């Protein structure tokens, strides 16, 4: 049974059913049911997945455009295994928080969310690079529209910036993909786009470097890595709550996913060659993002910049070239998706109640909305990596990986411990503590049942990952080692390392 196909296209089917009726209830209920079903299907791989197999699993291979060597090739490994349920889970959450809150074109809105889910799920399971590219671009359109139609005041600027930025990166990747297809032909396997074939290619270093940069820029923009990050705050601030949540929760992960999925196996020598540069960029992102977050007064912007900081750390971890960092990166992707997604949901909930995101105007809300404040606290703590919660596990592994790479990389990365606490707690204080500043006369309701239903599973997951990370780590172990082996087994890399030793 083609489970992966089912996973990817179930939301599409649901979105078609949504179109049958314009009634608000129909639209919302069908979307929710679809998202829930989709969530259940994304859990299936957990049962089928064998954690000791290093190749791709649950593969589906159907020739598609044979004349161009394009096939419909899906498959998962320990890297994508967790991103699937994360995606569908956050989609459910986003549909729930948008419940009755979308005032215009709600049918289109929910359809867009389901399409977005299709695109993202497709990105995570596609093994044919052409197919991957299609999903990669497909997912842009719904996100663009979500920002453009349902965003706040300056949405056009943000949406266009988001689109152009991402497109600019994708173009480089497209060129590199085509070059790779020709390379595949030149090296005797025929013109084709199958990743599994590409991995076997032995590309000369000069070419690798160029291709790597082309791929990497596309992914780095998505992450976003330090100099490419400026679209993110704008997009986040302007997007509707659910849009921000899904943007931060899932879309950013696609960049990291791409780096691990493509850059690692295809261009191992280039990865080793560029590692120092990338690590420095990542570290700059960590520290710079934290400083910027500290300077913000807009809640959403603060969370957006904190995302930049956290994602920078993930990049540092996965380019530390050891299994610890890679595993930390994978699990931190899930963690960051949960906690930052939840942060955006909470900020959105606050905005709904107080009609402002300006921290100088908020304050003293802990007394008014104790339940919201408690959830907020838990999420903030998870975000700054308090032990016992998910963020800690990821941070420890990432930093340990970085530390194993070079001690000072770990050291600089670990400043996130301090800086994260500084801006997050200051934010919390300004929003929740102290005296009320300007919302004193507003009627502010605490969390309603629907919002609790959204947050409770997130919080449970946060603790589950924090307390029993082995459940996840064991499943990704083999895949992480496999990814690493591409680097370590590459003959040229071995030669480089040997040279190093000789010099020493």
């Amino acid at each position, binding site marked *: 049974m083609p489970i992966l196909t089912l996973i990817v296209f179930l939301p599409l089917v649901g979105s078609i059913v949504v179109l049958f009726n314009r009634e608000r209830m129909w639209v919302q209920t069908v979307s929710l049911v679809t998202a829930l079903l989709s969530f259940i299907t994304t859990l299936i791989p957990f049962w089928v997945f064998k954690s000791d197999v290093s190749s791709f699993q649950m593969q589906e291979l159907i020739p598609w455009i044979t004349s161009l060597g394009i096939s419909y090739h899906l498959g998962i490994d320990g890297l994508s295994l967790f991103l699937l349920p994360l995606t569908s889970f956050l989609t459910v959450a986003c549909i729930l928080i948008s419940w009755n809150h979308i005032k215009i074109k709600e049918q289109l809105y929910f359809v867009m969310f389901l399409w977005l889910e299709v695109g993202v799920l497709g990105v995570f399971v596609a093994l044919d690079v052409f197919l991957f590219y299609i999903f990669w671009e497909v997912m842009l359109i719904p996100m663009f529209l979500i920002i453009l139609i349902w965003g706040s005041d300056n949405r056009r600027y943000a949406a266009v910036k988001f689109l152009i930025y991402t497109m600019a990166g994708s173009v480089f990747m497209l060129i590199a993909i085509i070059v790779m297809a020709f390379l595949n032909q030149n090296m005797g396997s025929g013109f084709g786009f199958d990743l599994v074939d590409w991995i076997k290619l032995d590309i000369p270093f000069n070419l690798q470097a160029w291709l790597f940069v082309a791929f990497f820029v596309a992914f780095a923009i998505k992450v976003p890595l330090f100099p490419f990050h400026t679209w993110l705050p704008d997009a986040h601030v302007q997007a509707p709550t659910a849009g921000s949540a899904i943007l931060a929760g899932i879309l950013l992960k696609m960049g990291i996913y791409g780096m691990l999925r493509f850059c690692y196996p295809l261009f191992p020598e280039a990865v080793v060659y560029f590692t120092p540069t990338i690590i420095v960029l990542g570290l700059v992102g960590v520290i710079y993002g934290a*400083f910027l977050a500290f300077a913000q007064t807009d809640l959403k912007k603060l969370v957006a910049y904190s995302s930049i900081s956290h994602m920078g750390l993930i990049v540092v971890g996965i380019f530390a070239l050891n299994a610890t960092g890679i595993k930390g990166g994978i699990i931190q992707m899930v963690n960051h998706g949960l906690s930052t997604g939840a942060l955006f949901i909470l900020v959105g909930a606050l905005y709904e109640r107080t009609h402002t995101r300006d921290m100088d105007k908020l304050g003293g809300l802990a007394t008014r909305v104790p339940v919201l404040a408690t959830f907020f606290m838990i999420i903030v703590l998870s975000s700054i990596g308090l032990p016992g919660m998910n963020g800690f596990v990821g941070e420890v592994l990432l930093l340990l990986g970085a530390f194993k790479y070079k001690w000072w990389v770990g050291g600089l990365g670990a400043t996130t411990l301090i800086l994260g606490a500084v801006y997050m*707690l200051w934010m919390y*204080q300004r929003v929740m503590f102290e005296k009320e500043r300007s919302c004193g006369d507003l009627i502010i309701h605490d969390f309603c049942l629907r919002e609790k239903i959204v947050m409770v599973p997130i919080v449970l997951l946060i603790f589950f990952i924090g307390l029993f990370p082995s459940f996840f*780590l*064991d499943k990704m172990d083999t895949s992480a080692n496999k990814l690493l082996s591409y680097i370590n087994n590459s003959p040229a890399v071995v030669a480089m390392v040997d040279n190093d030793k000789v010099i020493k």
Partner: protein
Amino acid sequence: MLFKAIYLLPLLPAIGVLINGLLGKRFGEKTVAFVACTSVGLSLILAIGILHQMLIASPAERVITSSLYRWISDGSLQINVGFLIDPLAIAMIMVILFVGFIIHFYSIGYMEGEPGYRRFFVHLNLFIFFMLILVMGDNLILTFVGWEGVGLCSYLLIGHWYEKKSASDAGRKAFVVNRVGDFGFMLGIFLVIVTFNTVNFVELKTILAGNHGIPTVTLAIISLLLFTGAVGKSAQFPLHVWLPDAMEGPTPVSALIHAATMVNAGVYFMCRIFPFLQQSQFVLPIIALVGMITAVYAACCAVGQKDIKKVLAYSTISQIGYMFMAVGCGIYVAGMFHLVAHGIFKGLLFLGSGAVIHAVKGEQDIVNMGGLIKTIPVTAITFLIGLLALAGIFPMVGFFSKDAIIMGGYETYGIVYWLFGFGGAILTALYCGKLFGMAFLGESNFTGHVHKPNFFFKAPLVILAVCAVFLGILGIPMFTKNTYFAQFMGSSFNLGAGGHAAAGHGIPLSLEIAFTLILSVFAIAAIVLALFMYSKHRKTMVDFESRHKGLMMFLLKGFWIDKLYDTIWVRPLKWISFYSDSVCDHRIVDGAVNGTGKIAMEVGKTLSRMQTGYVRYYAVSIVFGVFVLVGITMMFLF
């Protein structure tokens, strides 16, 4: 067998947290308090049981380990959720649970009618839970979990009255400064992992006891990094700045967290990793030096304080400095003994100060008190017992514990060390005398009705006072390193054949007795002098202080170190952050991006001017283009 059930120790407070936290909305204050106290009380009973079993076991069997499940694994590195209880841990656990239980009990009365009653008890229970995790964790990472967890609870409890800006500021400051220390802690853990590929205390100890061949420098760096964490948590110089501010929290919190348990965790942790310290010799003097500086510095500051709780706060910093002095001499037992003693008498003092503050309706400035001994005698007497213990007057427990530290160090570092200890002790006696004289003796400066303390206040004070008097028993026989406490603890600090700390004494007994006598006499003299001056000649002293305003301000503000940090850290960082937001990110990074867009736009605008709308023009352009093409063709043809 109780040893099998040690995981229940932290579990019980956790259950208390869950019950109160999730279901407590409908509970009344009494139910909440009952649940919280019972959970800690049951835990305490269990701990006493374990202590009993441990006492009757032979020293070699006094190590209990219990591994619950595999937590994080990375390659061959395994990090379990597992617990380790040895005499070192049980001593700390007893302090935590005993003092903790008493303070829970005390809080029932102290927090009565407060709006955040349930929240307070939830956080308090959570604190006990994390503290036990810290102490019982059998590996560095799990200890770090507790370490951060208590930091969190400290943050929450300092900011309990979060509507006060100063309170939430203080909480945040505590958390952030602690995180600075934790930064070092974390790096230390990483270095341990990279070097040893394990974080389990027992395994580490085994490795270090054998022939490990690891360079001393590595061990020293590990020790220093982990020590950074301890400095942060235990409020040692230069990371002490958060503790005086932490007095914004409710007084029971100050007693439990910022006097008896959490701030001592640094000392405990140094004792826990003593094999590292033992094997990297030049780290010990650094620790001792930090302890010495802190002990004297904080004692000086305490003399200048006016707020009753701040006096105690600086005193706590100073006393923990003493403990680090002990650690720095390698006499861990003495450090732990002072830790236990300090937990008792400082808990007592804080609870007493709480009772005083409660009695005088929230007044904390000792200048505005006075003569309280007449109105609240029980509080006053127990407070005095606490102060005497703090000043190290015979026969209080402080006498034994402090003497052990000062004398133990003399053996290692000589007279300079002793002088530092001596100076600190004299200053301690001074501010003890001043505090008691100002607050309880002399004429009353407080105008208003004084609340009598009720049972919830008195009972804890009396129990702790009794302990403070009689716990000194653990410190005999004096002048040997074989006290009762050391007999029990000794096995924890046994690193193979060579490293045992409880060897014989290197200095003659007579010299030691002489030094002790000198110290005692001077301390008694100082305390009596201060008592006398600040009660009978209070006016003179106040005049004296007002004449030397600069000096008093210097002491009051803790040598202006807060201000210094504000200037060299906080402001520059804030400036960098706002600068990088407004200029760097918007103008440069985003400017480059938008600039690209603008260039494209400008080019487009310029080119669009060629779009005249005249068909003729376009036709001409085609012709022109053909002309160019033909020209190029010609160039290639001929």
